[in-house]
């Protein structure tokens, strides 16, 4: 999980798996960071880490072209 105010490094990948944390350009919600809940044939379904996060249904299926990368590293406050 990302800490508030953390700096994060994302890397583009050919494929993503459930559990990956992605940087996504969402058509309605802007640039967001969410976890992959499920991987479909051509789309991904996302979920948030918090109970109050957007539901996967509200975010809808995500095309791979909207994914900017997978979280590979984060620098937290104090580092």
């Amino acid at each position: 999980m990302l800490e508030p105010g953390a700096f994060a490094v994302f890397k583009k990948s050919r494929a993503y798996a459930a559990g990956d944390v992605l940087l996504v350009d969402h058509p309605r919600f802007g640039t967001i960071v969410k976890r992959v809940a499920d991987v479909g044939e051509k789309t991904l379904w996302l979920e948030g880490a918090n109970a109050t996060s957007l539901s996967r249904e509200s975010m809808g299926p995500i095309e791979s072209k909207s994914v900017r990368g997978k979280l590979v590293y984060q620098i937290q406050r104090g580092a």
Partner: protein
Amino acid sequence: MIYSILNYLDSKGMIGRASAHCDIPCGIYDPGPALIAAVSVVRLMDIAYDGASDDPVALANLRARCTLRKEEEAEKVKQEIRVIWGDYFKAPLLEAHPNVHGLVHSIMQKASACKQDVHREDGLALVELVNEFAEIFWTTKSVETVRKTCPYPPKLKVVYPVLAD
């Protein structure tokens, strides 16, 4: 050290931003719901005390409903204020309004006091604290505010934004 360097680069606009923790990354924040909930707490206290009935069961029912709703409205105050404080107020705003942390903590404490008991003065204090929070919030939006008596019981002075159109 690394974080400080990145923070400096970020302050120069060299690093992109992404939302990960907000409830809905839509940028819509408004203290209005918190104020309505705070006023509702006072109203529910009034109804609990003023409600009269010859039927003791009906009176118990009324007071039980008031207590339940008071609990929910006080919790709503806490939730609404926490979201604005946690998601909307970023470092520059907090530097400009350093009293926000203390004010939010006071709101949390006072809302809890309203849940624990039925002291009207606690309810009035809660409304005043949320009014102060609303004034700070609208200041950050460069929107003037006015305190007007809300047009419904308990007819308390409430902060409203003065919007251009």
